[in-house]
């Protein structure tokens, strides 16, 4: 993937090959500006490849994949819709829900509320985004990415703007969602503890142009509890990854 034109072009990523099993939780970590987000845009089909081929499930990607759900650092909720209506948004776009929505709006709203309740937002489904805390907004945003039952959930620093306690709380929420739905998750993050706690596999990327430096399988058994993050085994993995990323200390 290349940004800009001719000699000013910046090569964001180069020769990246990742193979992911269905239902796998994988994280991509790396220094700032190493092309983590670019990789996500490529995989989702939002950005065409400059050279080479990108295949997802054996098919080359040329247009946006509809089986993708995305969430970002900012919740990006629509301020004129309630939480439940916000979660409903993808269904207004994706077929066959789009067609059915007109006649079965009530049923779909109920589904949206159920999903919000499952991430601990019971009682907040009819609130507007500005009535929700940052963590609640982010939960809503993740629900919006999940409502159409995507095959891949792509999260770009989803917890980056949250305080440490809320972040850990949401780690557990995400862990439970993934365990329950068996959805494939791609998590782009700066936070190594987050990556190791949540992912089956962690990919470390190098500085620009981004390449995969290491593929690290996290051997810690699932389901993982937050206490895991204080064990020696966990710390060792984080240290090892930290050394790979480098930078001055």
């Amino acid at each position: 993937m290349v940004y800009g034109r001719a000699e000013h072009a910046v090569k964001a990523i180069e020769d990246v090959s990742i193979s992911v099993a269905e239902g796998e939780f994988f994280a991509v970590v790396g220094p700032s500006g190493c092309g983590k987000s670019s990789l996500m845009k490529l995989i989702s089909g939002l950005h065409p490849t400059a050279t080479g081929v990108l295949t997802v499930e054996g098919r080359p990607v040329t247009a946006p994949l509809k089986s993708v759900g995305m969430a970002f650092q900012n919740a990006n909720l629509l301020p004129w819709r309630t939480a439940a209506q916000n979660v409903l948004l993808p269904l207004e776009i994706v077929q066959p829900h789009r067609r059915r929505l007109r006649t079965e709006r009530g049923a779909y709203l109920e589904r949206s509320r159920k999903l919000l309740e499952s991430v601990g937002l019971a009682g907040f489904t009819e609130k507007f985004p500005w009535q929700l805390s940052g963590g609640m907004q982010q939960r809503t945003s993740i629900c919006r990415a999940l409502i159409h039952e995507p095959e891949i959930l792509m999260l770009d620093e989803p917890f980056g703007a949250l305080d440490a306690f809320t972040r850990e709380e949401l780690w557990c929420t995400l862990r439970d969602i993934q365990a329950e739905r068996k959805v494939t998750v791609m998590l782009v993050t700066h936070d190594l503890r987050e990556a190791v706690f949540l992912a089956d596999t962690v990919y470390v990327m190098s500085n620009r142009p981004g390449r995969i430096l290491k593929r690290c399988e996290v051997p810690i058994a699932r389901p993982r509890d937050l206490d895991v993050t204080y064990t020696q085994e966990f710390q060792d993995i984080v240290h090892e990854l930290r050394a790979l990323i480098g930078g001055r200390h």
Partner: protein
Amino acid sequence: MDRRELAIKVGAPTAFTLGLLIIWQFACWAFKIPLTILPAPTDIAVALWQYRAPIIDNSFVTLWTTLAGFLIATVFGLALGIAVGWHRAIYAGIYPVLIGFNSVPKVAVVPVLILWFGLGEIPAILTAFLISFFPIVVNVATGLATTEPELEDVLRALGASKFDIMRKVGIPRSFPYFFGSLKVAITLAFVGAVVSETVGSNKGIGKLMLDAQASFQVPIVFAGLVVLAVLGIVLYAITAAIEKRFTGWAFRGQGAH
């Protein structure tokens, strides 16, 4: 509204307006200002009552030409704003012409309009329209341009078309900008209609004031100004109320919930 808020929202403007009138009245009396220069508020009130029939008659004309021009400006401005915000090529193509057009003083256009459509209400409606559509276009286009790219990505990844994104996100998000611009546009439309009436017409508050001025009936001129001011406030208040009704979500924390 509690008592404190009531005092601020109703008490303060009433006290200020009354104070202004009292100072005005006192100054006219103390400095013995002649009626032909600056009539006192009481003289204006007398003129308002005495000439109420022609004033109401002419106000009605000004009001409906203003509203007609404003309605055309709203529809046209919204459509053009969406077009300009839709694609950068449309933006680049239309913008220079739009700014050039907006720079032309509309008083200079009125004679042309009279030449084309004759004396009457049409030049006033068109002037009101021409002067008031620009802020609507600019605001709607700005609203569309500020759509978060991430949100656009979320929708595009689901296979949403440009039209879907506009309909679900872009247009609703530009609504506060749109309604905000209506408040500016309504006052401008009012100015446009009156300017056109003053340059040349056979009816309207502008024409009434022009005739009164020609015969040195200064209290009537000022009565006309008062009517314009009051109508301006009323029209503004109505658009502001509509704005609040439709985009309450953009006014969070200001007593909207």
